[in-house]
């Protein structure tokens, strides 16, 4: 293949060795500390204010660092973590149902289809218990039992009830907890908050991340902000597919710009397709809406047994329905992990048994649960989700089964980080969904909130201190040649986008790119399809730079210009995703290659060849990317064919 070359493997992930349960303690003890008086003289930039960025900015400020925080929304409280519905996992074992740190660790490594780093996942499971304590102390209104203690529920990929929740708005409530801690620090003058600002470039001085170039989205002003370290908490890149459950503004620009400056991008092809989303209704569709995975606790997934059965769902008798998840996976039933549930839905639709106007849908039926528990109980658990479903579709899910179909939801890939969450650029840390770290090839439900808060509250604040304490950094300001150059690149790019003045809108390109990606780099991928996609992406990217029309100017609020910059970066990312998917000649988790499946259609891993993290290095426009492998070692959880049967 001429698409990439192979470089040196990644030899050191900075993870301590020895017993896995002692590694994080030892890392924290070995990490250098910054004394409180010196912290006041150090500035840390945090990009993004979701669970990871918000909690990190608040915690760093509490510790005494000067923090500058940036978000593209009009308030830090609106970051997309707010839309997470179902819950947050923690190994509290309050249910006395056999849970433990080790079991959460085990479930997460297995759920990730043995493509994550054991050291990181164990740490995640360890700090999960502290997260719940922290959030309760902040006043997060978790669901409680009548005795006043916290309630939990089940989520996919686990047989214990370890998911804490706040009705269907867990992300919102956790984010507001972090946001309030952040606002407290803003009020105290410890955090300088910059809303409606977008990071457009990373400033690297002498090989270290020392600042960012940002655009004030209201005035259009470009400025260069310098610091001692930069933290990216800018979320995932699911919007490369145009249609996804991400917020419309979610984008890859911050991490992609860092990638172009030398940060490796790891496992970009690992995309999570969530099985329970409201199906597409027409060409006008601008985004997809998730129906929480928690619904699979009580809803039963089915399609008609016969192809082309057009009867209304209630007219289809019980024995002519195929509850296919319960049939194929009797031990996990409707609660199989997301990748498995999504692919199963695709398979039954491919067989011609899909439901709804587009035939790209399956039923999620609550009739049994309503009979068993009563409508009131279902309302209390899922009321807001049912209402949302009705507003969007015009159908009442208490009466008619929901129709659902998989949609892009989360990206497990992201910037490569070591055990300290530091990228390949010293001084550049990456947390939350923006990094590739803990979920392997498939994230389990209710683990994104856990990881975002683990990184922000507990991991990063310890590891960044080690970096900041490791020797005085040279004093640099925005006049440094590297900073001036980064700023000039940003200004030049904006000028070029405005200058094309073509005849197609940004959205029309974005939609077309999304179609290519969904078709060839979505739920099922093949060599021929991926090669075709790469050609199509390259052609479309060229056309974009010839034909896009961005109205208005760079001065002042220009939403078309913001979108254009983001889509331009999505083109480059899309190509890398396809290269990564093409090179990984195996199926694992969310990455399913048609050529690599077991006789009964499950993902077929190839541990001999692919038990590694693929970290990609950018070497220049049009140049082949360079693959660096980080070998994964499994000392505690031995890779097996995942079975949920």
């Amino acid at each position: 293949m001429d698409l990439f070359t192979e470089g040196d493997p990644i030899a050191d992930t900075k993870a301590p060795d020895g017993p896995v349960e002692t590694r994080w303690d030892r890392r924290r003890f070995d990490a250098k500390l910054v004394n409180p008086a010196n912290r006041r003289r150090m500035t840390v930039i945090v990009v993004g204010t979701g669970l990871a960025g918000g909690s990190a900015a608040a915690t760093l400020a509490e510790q005494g660092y000067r923090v500058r925080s940036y978000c593209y929304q009009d308030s830090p409280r609106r970051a997309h973590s707010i839309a997470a519905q179902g819950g947050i996992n923690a190994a509290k074992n309050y249910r006395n149902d056999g849970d433990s740190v080790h079991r959460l660790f085990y479930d997460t490594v297995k759920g990730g289809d043995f493509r994550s780093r054991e050291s990181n996942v164990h740490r995640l499971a360890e700090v999960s218990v502290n997260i719940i304590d922290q959030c309760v102390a902040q006043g997060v209104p978790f669901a409680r039992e009548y005795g006043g203690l916290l309630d939990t529920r089940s989520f996919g990929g686990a047989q214990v009830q370890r998911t804490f929740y706040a009705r269907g708005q867990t992300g919102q409530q956790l984010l507001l907890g972090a946001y309030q801690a952040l606002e407290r620090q803003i009020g105290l003058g410890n955090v300088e908050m910059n809303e409606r600002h977008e990071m457009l470039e990373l400033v690297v001085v002498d090989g270290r991340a020392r600042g960012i170039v940002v655009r004030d989205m209201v005035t259009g002003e470009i400025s260069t902000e310098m610091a001692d370290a930069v933290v990216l908490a800018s979320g995932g890149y699911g919007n490369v597919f145009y249609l996804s459950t991400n917020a419309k503004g979610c984008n890859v620009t911050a991490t992609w710009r860092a990638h172009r400056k030398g940060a490796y991008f790891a496992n970009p092809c690992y995309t999570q397709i969530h099985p329970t989303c409201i199906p597409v209704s027409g060409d006008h569709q601008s985004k997809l809406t998730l129906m929480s995975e928690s619904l699979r606790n009580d809803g039963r997934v089915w399609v008609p047994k016969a192809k082309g059965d057009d009867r209304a769902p209630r007219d289809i008798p019980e024995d002519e329905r195929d509850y296919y998840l319960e049939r194929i996976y009797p031990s996990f039933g409707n609660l199989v992990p997301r990748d498995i549930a999504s692919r199963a839905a695709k398979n039954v639709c491919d067989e011609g048994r899909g439901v709804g106007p587009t035939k790209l849908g399956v039923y999620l039926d609550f009739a049994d649960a309503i009979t068993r528990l009563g409508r009131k109980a279902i309302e209390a658990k899922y009321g807001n989700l049912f209402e949302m479903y009705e507003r969007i579709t015009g159908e009442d899910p208490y009466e008619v089964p929901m129709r659902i179909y998989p949609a892009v939801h989360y990206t497990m890939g992201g910037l490569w980080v070591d055990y300290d969450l530091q990228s390949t650029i010293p001084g550049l840390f990456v947390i939350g969904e923006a990094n590739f770290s803990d979920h392997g090839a498939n994230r389990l439900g209710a683990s994104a909130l856990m990881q975002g808060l683990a990184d922000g509250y507990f991991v990063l604040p310890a590891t960044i201190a080690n970096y900041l304490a490791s020797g005085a950094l040279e004093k640099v300001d925005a006049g440094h040649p590297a900073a001036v150059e980064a700023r000039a690149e940003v200004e030049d790019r904006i000028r070029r986008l405005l200058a094309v003045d073509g005849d197609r809108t940004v959205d029309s390109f974005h939609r077309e790119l999304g179609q290519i990606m969904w078709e060839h780099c979505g739920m099922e991928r093949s060599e021929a399809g991926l090669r075709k996609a790469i050609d199509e992406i390259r052609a479309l990217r060229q056309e974009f730079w010839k034909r896009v029309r961005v109205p208005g100017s760079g001065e002042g609020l220009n939403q078309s210009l913001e979108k254009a910059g983001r889509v331009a970066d999505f083109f480059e990312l899309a190509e890398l995703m396809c290269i990564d998917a093409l090179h990984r000649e195996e199926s694992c988790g969310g990455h399913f290659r048609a050529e690599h499946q077991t006789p009964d259609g499950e993902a077929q891993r190839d541990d001999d060849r692919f038990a590694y993290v693929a970290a990609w290095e950018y070497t220049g426009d049009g140049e082949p990317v360079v693959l660096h492998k980080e070998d994964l070692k499994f000392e505690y959880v031995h890779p097996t064919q995942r079975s949920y049967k």
Partner: protein
Amino acid sequence: MNLTLRIWRQSGPQDKGRMVAYQVDDVSPDMSFLEMLDVLNERLILSGEEPVAFDHDCREGICGMCGLMINGEAHGPQRGTTACQLHMRQFSDGDTIDIEPWRARAFPVVKDLVVNRGAFDKIIAAGGYITAPTGSAPEAHATPVAKADADAAFEAAACIACGACVAACPNGSGMLFTAAKLTQLSLLPQGQPERYTRVIGMVDAHDEAGFGGCTNAGECTAVCPKGIPLNTIGRLNRDYLKATAKGAGTPGS
């Protein structure tokens, strides 16, 4: 459906602004209101006009970013629904729809339908939190919370800070927003130590930001997409009175 839209256009804070009429045809009833605006904007861009600026993000009714006055109603005609979740099946062929930004002294217009709601953040920064620095938390089950209190706290915590309450209020008051946060935190045992400094701090910040006072008009709760109850404001008033009687200062004072 074919619709006539009359939209507020204002190029920036200095511009006086005006309503401009646009015709939008072939609107599907399955479109969301914002998708209908997307269609208009695509057309405006291709015909060389400036698209309409409006705020939106999650389009799931939870981020609170969108906020439009639709025919004079905050978030439009459907109760309990943000503009992004409003679907065109709520309208009829031939309708004329007026679309305006939130109008309130505390929310200056940035451009077209986009306003600055930074005043809400200032209210939170002035006390809308429980001081619990990372690492200092006791075991979560150390403090049980009665389910009724936890549920009521949750109900108040559902606020998304969209600002509809302010836009609907004849006084441009932000009391429902402020009261929602105060109610959540004052119902929980964790929120007790700062209960009275919190209410002073937040109410002072509310008044300083240019919001009007509450005269119990109740418009706020009627338009609230999350159904924040009006009795939260009663709770705020009671706590404010007690705080004044106790001589409580602002947080940290």
